[in-house]
């Protein structure tokens, strides 16, 4: 193979693929061949770079130049200017929203500067469909070490000592889970990877599976060795076709190369992997529900104990871990528990991947050490709020979590601190909201989701969330009463205490949390029949078009509640909180300046 001087890395993650990045790879190949550089320049289809909001992304290696929002018509320019002449194409560089500077290098960008990548270490770096690239970056070395030098007990002890906790949301000690499963005596045990990423707004598991599938295979095999299982099952959403494809390719390559199957690395340990598809049920993120789904049944949870570590898949001891959790295993094995513990906070070592989305400039996946503050994530990495609007809240933990307000932006993030402020880590979705988002409407949105996803097995969740959703609908339509607020709270606490599984127990959180932090917004909806954010359509009020208003004062004179103010010949404004939507101003205006709700 000829030694290549440059690699053009093109993102092959879902976000960029939907913007034709795969077709662009073909175009690039043709262009490079046409210019006669096919021996010197390689084109690599990589996993997700994480900066999805700026896709499609093309990175030139080793120059470390990062091109964003590349379109097919830009490719010839990149090849002719950058590859042939060595000149950077300035207009395709990332422009920082705050300084408006064009940044050449990947590591100059604030989005990447504060990140510390463990779980995402290979994403955007290697070709996920080539096992040898994974191996070149130290892949399967951890598995080799474990199988040749460690006893299963030592592996468990090592993971336990690292303090790694479940990244799917629960935060349970991974080492302890392994230990419990290892200690359960049985002829057959199972390792299951939970890749049924159901939290709307979180897509880190998808990115890892698409960008670095071998790391999951390696980690599951290590887990199998540690707990004494010879079969692993990856339970993945059917809605992730690209991730499924890459996993299949990776499993096949691992089998061909003797890294899966019988007598791995010449040891006595054998391990096989299967893929099972989910079918769109949020509750299947709960481990007992997931196991029932793997068994081909309705994904309804069952009471714990018995825990899956004792009685899981087909009644056998089963260890269920999330994708991101697994992605941390090989580095911990290679670099040691002490290395891992030095990152993050004492109770939550390591890093966490967050999916930053919503009203934020830099949308994408970010991996930061635990203990990083929300302010750093939103303002330094995320580049602040779109259009310079005012930050209102950030929702973490998805439908199970809560909102975090400005007052808590400096809280260092870990499992405990988020819980203390009424939210939770969850799987890492982070939705940023600005002044235009109505918190009552957001709470309603989440309740609609959980109500829809409730499996219906237990009454508190099935009926309780439905009632809560109805009350919230009533409030957003201006029919709410004080009594409704009291009911919401009582009902919320009751569901939390009495629901069968994690879905129900956490479903009231978005409501309780917004009730706590944004009581004034609920009050406005109920007392003044006013939506401060202007998002609830039923409560929309009359408004005045500043372009058309000439300040004739006609509207102000007819307003029965005196909610229109303004000097003669100056633009008038309506105080929406006082407006009773009688329409008198609309009729009075001769200049078509009053806008009807």
């Amino acid at each position, binding site marked *: 193979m000829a030694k290549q001087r440059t690699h053009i890395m093109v993102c092959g993650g*879902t*976000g960029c*693929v*939907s*913007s034709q990045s795969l077709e662009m790879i073909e175009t690039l190949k043709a262009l490079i061949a046409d210019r006669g550089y096919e021996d010197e320049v390689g084109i690599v289809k990589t996993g997700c770079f994480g*900066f*999805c*909001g700026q*896709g499609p992304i093309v990175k030139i290696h080793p120059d470390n130049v990062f091109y964003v929002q590349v379109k097919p018509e830009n490719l010839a320019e990149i090849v002719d200017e950058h590859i042939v002449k060595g000149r950077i194409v300035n207009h395709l560089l990332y422009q920082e929203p705050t300084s408006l500077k064009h940044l050449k290098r990947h590591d100059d960008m604030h989005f990447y500067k504060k990140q510390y990548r463990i779980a995402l270490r290979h994403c955007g770096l290697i070709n996920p469909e080539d096992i040898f690239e994974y191996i070149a970056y130290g892949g399967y070395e951890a598995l080799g070490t474990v199988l040749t030098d460690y006893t299963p007990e030592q592996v468990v002890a090592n993971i336990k000592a690292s303090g790694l906790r479940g990244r799917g949301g629960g935060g349970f000690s991974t080492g302890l889970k392994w230990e419990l499963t290892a200690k359960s005596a049985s002829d057959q045990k199972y390792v299951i990877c939970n890749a049924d*990423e*159901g*939290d*709307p*707004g*979180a*897509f880190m598991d*998808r990115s890892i599976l698409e960008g670095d599938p071998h790391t999951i295979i390696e980690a599951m095999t290590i887990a199998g060795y540690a707990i004494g299982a010879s079969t692993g099952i990856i339970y993945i959403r*059917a*809605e*992730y*076709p690209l991730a499924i494809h890459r996993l299949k390719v990776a499993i096949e390559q691992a089998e061909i190369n003797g890294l899966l199957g019988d007598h791995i690395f010449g040891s006595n340990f054998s391990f096989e992997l299967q893929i*099972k*598809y*989910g*079918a*769109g*049920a*949020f509750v299947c993120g709960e481990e007992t529900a997931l196991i029932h*789904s*793997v*068994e*081909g*049944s*309705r*994904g309804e949870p069952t009471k714990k104990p018995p825990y899956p570590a004792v009685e899981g898949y087909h009644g056998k001891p089963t260890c269920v871990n999330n994708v991101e959790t697994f992605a941390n295993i090989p580095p911990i094995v290679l670099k040691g528990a002490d290395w891992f513990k030095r990152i993050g906070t004492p109770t939550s070592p390591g890093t966490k991947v967050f*999916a930053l*989305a*919503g*009203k934020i400039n830099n*949308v*994408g996946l970010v991996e930061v050490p635990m203990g990083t503050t929300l302010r750093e994530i939103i303002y330094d990495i995320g580049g602040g709020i779109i259009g310079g609007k005012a930050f209102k809240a950030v*929702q973490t933990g*998805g439908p199970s979590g809560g909102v975090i307000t400005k007052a808590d932006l400096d809280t260092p993030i870990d499992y405990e601190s988020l819980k203390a402020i009424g939210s939770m880590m969850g799987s890492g*979705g982070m*939705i940023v*909201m600005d002044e235009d*988002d109505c918190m009552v409407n*957001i709470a309603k*949105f*989440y309740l609609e*989701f959980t109500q829809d*996803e409730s*499996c219906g097995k237990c009454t508190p969740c099935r009926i309780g969330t439905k009632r809560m959703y109805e009350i919230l609908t009533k409030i957003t339509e201006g029919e709410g009463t004080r009594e409704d607020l009291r009911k919401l709270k009582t009902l919320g606490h009751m569901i939390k205490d009495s629901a069968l599984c994690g879905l129900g127990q956490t479903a009231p959180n978005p409501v309780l949390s917004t009730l706590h932090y944004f009581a004034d917004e609920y009050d406005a909806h109920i007392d003044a029949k006013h939506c401060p954010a202007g998002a609830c359509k039923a409560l929309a009020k009359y408004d005045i078009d500043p372009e058309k208003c000439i300040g004739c004062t006609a509207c102000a004179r007819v307003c029965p509640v005196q909610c229109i103010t303004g000097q003669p010949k100056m633009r008038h404004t309506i105080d929406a909180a006082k407006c009773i939507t009688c329409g008198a101003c609309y009729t009075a205006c001769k200049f078509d300046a009053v806008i009807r709700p």
Partner: protein
Amino acid sequence: MSDIFSHEKTQERLDTLNAFIDAQANKNDALIAVLHRAQEIFGYLPSELQLYIARKLDIPASKVYGVVSFYTFFTQKKRGLHTISVCMGTACFVKGSEKVFHAFTETLGIKNGETTADGKFTLRDVRCIGACGLAPVVMVDDKVFGHVKDADVEAIIAQYAEKGSE
């Protein structure tokens, strides 16, 4: 009654499904996998097909129905030629996917889960397809459209309306 078994290629389709079922190592676990395959082959899972699968796997039809109705991925109604899925995940929701969805219902004249009279389009909402960086996102069949505004809706529909049935 659906016309699921009156299609000219019915036997061919059933043979494919039978081969898949017979290849399952563990029939107890296979139901969801079989339903995925059946939906791929037939497009939807009406009760006749559910009954067929139940008999083939030797399990109660009620169990098959229980699973089909539990998971949102499975559909018991025939879909249009193209399925338009509007993402209603949180990231898309705060970026205004409700407006986009509304524009689709207005333009197509159908509600969520319905199919247009000419059988061309089925409209549905989906919970996050994991492309939050492109919010709001619309998926037509397997193709993802990112940063969709309500004004883009007509153009998206037009693109597929022309294609006709093939």
